[in-house]
C-alpha cells in the first residue's frame, strides 16, 4: 500500500501545490475531512477554512475558500476559488476584515444578503488567521 498520494491545489489563476503528501486535512462544505492514501473516490464542494498537509514531516498550511475537492486513491485535487499559502497571508488585512465583518454582524444594515456576506467574510478572515498561525 502506498504511503503517500499526490496533492494538487490550484486556483483559476495559479497552481499552488503539487507534491507527494502522507496525509491532508481538507475543509469540505460539510466539515473537515482527513485524507490518507488509498481513500475511495470522493467528490464534494470545498468549504471555507484552513487546509493542512504533511509533506514528509513538514506541516504546511493554506487558507482556502469555495470550489471543489476530488479525492482519488492516489491523487487529491483541490480546485479552490481562493487559496493562499500561510506565508503569503496579509495578517493585518485579515484582522481588519474580521473586525469589519463582526461589526456588520452586530449592526446588520438590511436584508439577508448582507448578513450572509458578512458571515462569509468573517469565515474567510478566520481561516486566513488560522492558517497563518496567528488565529
Amino acid at each position, binding site marked *: 500500500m502506498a504511503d503517500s498520494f499526490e496533492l494538487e491545489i490550484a486556483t*483559476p489563476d495559479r*497552481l499552488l501545490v503539487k507534491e507527494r503528501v502522507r496525509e491532508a486535512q481538507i475543509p469540505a462544505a460539510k466539515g473537515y475531512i482527513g485524507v490518507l492514501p488509498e481513500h475511495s473516490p470522493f*467528490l464534494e464542494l470545498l468549504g471555507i477554512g484552513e487546509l493542512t498537509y504533511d509533506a514528509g514531516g513538514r506541516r504546511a498550511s493554506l487558507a482556502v475558500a469555495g470550489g471543489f475537492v476530488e479525492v482519488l486513491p492516489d491523487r487529491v485535487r483541490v480546485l479552490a476559488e481562493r487559496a493562499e499559502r500561510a506565508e503569503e497571508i496579509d495578517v493585518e488585512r485579515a484582522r481588519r476584515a474580521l473586525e469589519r465583518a463582526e461589526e456588520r454582524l452586530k449592526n446588520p444594515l438590511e436584508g439577508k444578503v448582507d448578513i450572509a456576506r458578512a458571515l462569509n467574510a468573517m469565515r474567510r478572515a478566520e481561516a486566513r488567521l488560522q492558517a497563518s498561525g496567528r488565529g
Partner: protein
Amino acid sequence: MPSLIDLRRRIRSVRNTQQITRAMKMVSTARLRRAQDRVLQARPYARSLRELAENAAAAASASERLARHPLLVRRPEERIQLILITSDRGLAGAFNANLIKAAQAFLQEHSGARVEMELIGRKGRDFFRKRGAAITGEHIGLANRARYDDIVPLADKMLRRYAAKEIDAVYLLYNEFKSMLAQRLEVRRVLPIELREAASPVEYITERPPEELLDTLLPQYVKITLHHALLESTAAEHAARMTAMDAATTNAEELIDKLTLHLNRVRQASITREIIEVVSGATGLE
C-alpha cells in the same frame, strides 16, 4: 533631387521610429512571456475542472432529469449574445482587423436572430459603437491583468441573462495563441454548455445530489472558459505586436540602408561637381 540636408533629416527620422519599434518589440516580448506564464499557471485548474464537468456530464446523460439542466439544453437561438475580445491598443498587425471582420461575418450569418454584443477591448468597442451595434456592455483594461476575479462579474451577467431567457445562446469570439507568428480565430459557444462525456466516468461516493454538483460545476465552467479566452487573447495580442514590431524594425533598417546609399551618391556627386568647377575655373585662368 533631394538635398543632402533633406536626406540626413529623413534618415534621422526613420532611425528614431526604428528605436521606438525596437523598444516596443522588447516590451511585447517581456509581456508575452508573462502572459504565457499565466496561461500555464491557469491550466491545471482549467483541466481538472473540465474533467470534473465531463464526469458530471456522463452522469447527467444517464439521467433524463439531469440532462434537462437549463445550462445544457439548446433552445432555438433567437437572441444571441456575442462576446468579442479585442485588444485595447493597436499596432499589433492584423490582430484586431481579423477579429472585427470575423465579428461582422458572424453578424451577417446570424442576421435572422437578434445579436447583442459584449465588447472586451477598446478596438472592438470603438468600431462597433460607431456603427451603432446593439451593445450590452464594454470592458476596457480587462485584458491587461486578466485576473480571474475580473472576469467573474461578466460571467455572472451572462449566466443571469441566460437564466432569465433574455438570451438563448452566448458565443465567444477571440484570438487564440497558436505560435509566435500565428493566431487562430476561435468562435466558441459558451452557453448552452457543450461537454464531451467522460469515456470511463469515476464513481464517487458523495452525499450530495448530483444536480447540486452540476449547479455549481457548470457556472464555474463558464467562468473558466471566459478566463481562458482572455488569457489566450492577451498572449496572442503580445505575440502579434511583437511580430509586427519586429517586421517594422527590419523595414526601417532596409529603408535606412537605401537612404544612406542614396545620401552617399548625392554627396559624391556634389563633390565631383565642385572639383569640376574648380578645375574648369583654373583652366580658364591659364
